[in-house]
């Protein structure tokens, strides 16, 4: 992938530089083609070939071929230069990668030695590191041998490849030892673990031994036994020292192994001896000591079980240590060899076998650069020469054009005097087309002047008509203005009348209100009157009743009086009879006769009184009846009066309502009149505005009339000015 990306710019560059010269040449070609087409189109109109242009074209075609060749060479040289530089860059990149990866071998050889040492001492962390280092070295060597596209490594060649083979040989031995160490990993770690156990148990064992000794001293045991017990302490310490020495794996390891084996067996025997001799309390202490001893013993058994593997690992580690220096030295040589010179395999194929590839790569860029500069110089010289030739040619052309233009100007001088009948001569020179165009323009101008003349005549006619129209329009506008003035005055008068009417209507409203109030008061008076009449009627009826009762009473009086009359008559009869009797009695009845006379007189008088009373009562009754009938008459009249008053009251209420309506109507009229008054004022204002507008319009019409007469004048002037042209 990296290779293709390195080569791609080269292709692009090649393509670009290949097209550029053609573009340049194409431009010049196009320029020529343009002038040719112009002249050709001119030919089609004027039918004259441009001979000088063809000559120039053939001359340019010879120079253009040379230029094309030179440009091609220049492009080739620049392309080769670019390819060379690219390949050089690629080569140095490959070399850098190889140097980097091979220098890693130096570090790895040292690290392997250290890691092997740590692993044999029982460091578990060292083992993965050892494996990694081994795999790394394997990977590097494989990459350098066979190449690796992933990390962009090319296989080594030449001298470096020989040195790599030497390194690989040494690595085979180192890798075997490394595998040994890795294979004995369990045994080594087990020994390390057992040593740690021993180091833990020894202090406990020492303490327990001390306790046993103290107990025996307290119980005053046998002195020899106490000595034996004391020796146990020494044995314990020696076992620890031996085990630790063994675990270091130094030269004294084998001796230490035999030593602590022997010591352990002695310790065991001593414990068993003490067990059989001491008192029970000491034996109890001894039991716990014995348990600890069993643990120690099993740990040491563990150590002794892995001794063979441990030793082989130790040997391998020492071998690695020795070989790592060789590996380091070989690796250093390899790195130096790679960085000194690594010929690029790609280029090597194109370089002849008898030429030194390095020499070619060193000088080729310089040669190509010089060639490019030379070609560039030549090209510039060619282009400068061509520019001088073209300047000369254009000067000649200018001279010819000036002559042609002067001729054309001569022909056109009559045009300035207003002669539109001229016709310029059409030649094959540059002015030919201009003359043709001028002819066309003069023709168009002729037509234009003719049209202007006719138009000016038409305008003159139209303006005279328009002026008449405008004059009559101004007159009408004046009349309209007068009419508007009259209307405005009348409307102002109308607005005044409206305002007066409005104030009158307000006064009417007041009057109508007061009349309504009067009607109200009248209605209430009538109601009071009706009430009074009703009261009166009731009183009259009451009085009539009483008078009737009076009449009845007088009737009773009459009855009583008639009774009295009867009594008086009877009394009269009786008195007469008494007188008769007295007279018959003669002298004896004289006194009685007097009494009878007297009685008779009384009876007469009472009868007379009764008759008078009767007459009086009759008179009373008559009067009473008259009174009753007159009262009935009065009552009827009162009722009639009440009805009349009621009607009057209703009429007054109607009057009140009518007054109310009248008030409202007048109010509405007042409001409307006010509105009309305002409207009239508005209309008046608007009429004023209209009058002003109309005045403006009149002035505008006058101005228009003026403008039209001006226009007429201008049109006549235009006619005169156009008449100067000769058509």
């Amino acid at each position, binding site marked *: 992938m990296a290779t293709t990306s390195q080569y791609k710019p080269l292709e692009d560059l090649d393509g670009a530089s290949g097209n550029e010269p053609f573009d340049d040449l194409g431009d010049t070609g196009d320029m020529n083609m343009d002038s040719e087409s112009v002249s050709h189109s001119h030919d089609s109109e004027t039918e004259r070939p441009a001979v000088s242009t063809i000559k120039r074209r053939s001359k340019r075609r010879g120079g253009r071929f040379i230029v094309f060749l030179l440009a091609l060479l220049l492009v080739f040289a620049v392309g080769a230069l670019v390819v060379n530089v690219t390949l050089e860059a690629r080569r140095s990149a490959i070399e850098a990668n190889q140097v980097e990866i091979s220098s890693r071998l130096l570090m790895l050889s040292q690290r392997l030695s250290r890691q092997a040492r740590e692993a044999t001492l029982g460091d578990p962390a060292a083992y993965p590191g050892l494996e990694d280092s081994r795999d790394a070295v394997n990977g590097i060597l494989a990459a350098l041998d066979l190449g690796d596209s992933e990390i962009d490594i090319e296989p080594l060649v030449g001298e470096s490849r020989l040195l790599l083979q030497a390194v690989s040989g040494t690595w085979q031995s180192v890798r075997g030892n490394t595998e040994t160490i890795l294979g004995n990993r369990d045994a080594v770690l087990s020994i390390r673990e057992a040593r740690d156990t021993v180091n833990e148990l020894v202090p406990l064992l020492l303490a327990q031994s001390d306790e046993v000794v103290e107990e025996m001293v307290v119980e005053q045991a046998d002195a020899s036994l106490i000595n034996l017990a004391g020796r146990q302490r020494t044995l314990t310490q020696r076992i620890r020292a031996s085990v630790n020495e063994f675990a270091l794996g130094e030269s004294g390891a084998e001796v230490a192994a035999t030593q602590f084996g022997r010591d352990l067996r002695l310790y065991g025997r001593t414990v068993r001896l003490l067990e059989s001799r001491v008192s029970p309390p000491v034996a109890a202490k001894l039991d716990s000591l014995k348990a600890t001893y069993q643990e120690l013993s099993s740990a040491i058994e563990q150590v002794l079980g892995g001794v063979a593997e441990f030793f082989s690992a130790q040997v391998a580690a020492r071998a690695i240590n020795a070989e790592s220096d060789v590996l380091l030295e070989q690796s250093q040589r390899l790195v130096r060899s790679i960085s000194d010179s690594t010929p690029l395999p790609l280029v090597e194929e194109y370089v002849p076998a008898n030429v030194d590839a390095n020499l070619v790569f060193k000088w080729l860029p310089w040669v190509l650069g010089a060639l490019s500069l030379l070609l560039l110089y030549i090209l510039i010289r060619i282009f400068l020469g061509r520019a001088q030739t073209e300047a000369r040619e254009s000067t000649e052309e200018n001279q010819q054009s000036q002559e042609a233009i002067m001729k054309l100007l001569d022909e056109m001088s009559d045009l300035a005097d207003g002669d539109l009948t001229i016709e310029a001569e059409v030649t094959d020179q540059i002015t030919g087309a201009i003359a043709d165009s001028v002819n066309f323009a003069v023709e168009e101008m002729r037509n234009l002047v003719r049209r202007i003349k006719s138009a000016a005549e038409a305008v003159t006619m139209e303006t005279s008509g328009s002026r008449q129209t405008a004059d009559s329009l101004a007159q009408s506008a004046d009349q309209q203005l007068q009419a508007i003035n009259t209307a405005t005055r009348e409307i102002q008068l109308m607005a005044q009348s409206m305002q007066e009417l409005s104030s009158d209507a307000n006064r009417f409203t007041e009057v109508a209100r007061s009349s309504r109030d009067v009607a109200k008061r009248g209605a209430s008076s009538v109601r009071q009157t009706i009430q009074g009449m009703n009261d009166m009627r009731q009183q009259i009826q009451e009085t009539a009743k009483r008078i009737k009762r009076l009449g009845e009473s007088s009737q009773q009086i009459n009855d009583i009086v008639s009774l009295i009359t009867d009594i008086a008559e009877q009394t*009269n009869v009786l008195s007469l009879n008494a007188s*008769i009797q007295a007279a018959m009695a003669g002298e004896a009845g004289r006194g009685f*006769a007097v009494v009878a006379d*007297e009685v*008779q007189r009384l009876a007469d008088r009472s009868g007379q009184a009764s008759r008078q009373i009767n007459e009086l009562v009759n008179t009373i009754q008559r009067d009473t009846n008259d009174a009753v009938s007159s009262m009935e008459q009065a009552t009827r009249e009162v009722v009639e009066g009440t009805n009349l008053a009621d009607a009057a009251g209703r009429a007054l209420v109607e009057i009140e309502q009518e007054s109310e309506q009248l008030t409202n109507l007048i109010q509405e009229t007042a409001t409307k009149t006010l509105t009309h008054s305002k409207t009239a004022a508005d209309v008046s204002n608007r009429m004023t505005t209209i009058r002003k507008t109309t005045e403006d319009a009149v002035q505008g019409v006058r101005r228009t009339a003026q403008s039209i007469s001006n226009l007429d004048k201008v049109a006549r002037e235009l006619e005169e000015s156009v008449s100067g042209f000769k058509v």
Partner: protein
Amino acid sequence: MVEQRSKALEQTRRLLEAQHQQASDDDKVWRALAIEARDVPLVIPINNVVELAVCENITPIPLTQTWIRGLTNLRGQLYTVIDLSVFFGGHETRLSRDARIVLLSDDGFNTCLLVNSVLGLKVFGEDQPLGDVANVSTDIKPFFRGQIDEGERQWAVLDVDALITDKRFLTPGRLEAVPGLEH
């Protein structure tokens, strides 16, 4: 009240005493009952009159003279009522409130006179002259004693005896009214 009454009694006693004194002084007087029949003022001497009565139920008697009004019952005694006006050739007396019947002392005739009215008792002196009766028709003149002129009024004095003994008066029946009775 008591005083008024005692005063009235005192007046009455004085009056009576005065009357009695006058009567004893003037012996030669006669009394008569003044009546009115056929609008003529008459006096009947008091000794010819038994009683006065109010005219009540009068039952007509058929087939009698027109001046006999009928019979009337007075305290169980039947009396023949004579209409004096009709008898004197006048109109029939109207039975008004003032109409009275005067019972005459006629020794068993039981006759009474119907009059328009009783005017009262009149006292005349013995020496008061009796004039000729005026204003009456000749056929009834025999029934009057004479006439007393009192100035303002002329009283015809009725002669009861002449009346009750008159032939006409004694023939009350009306035979001509019954066809065939004359023969």
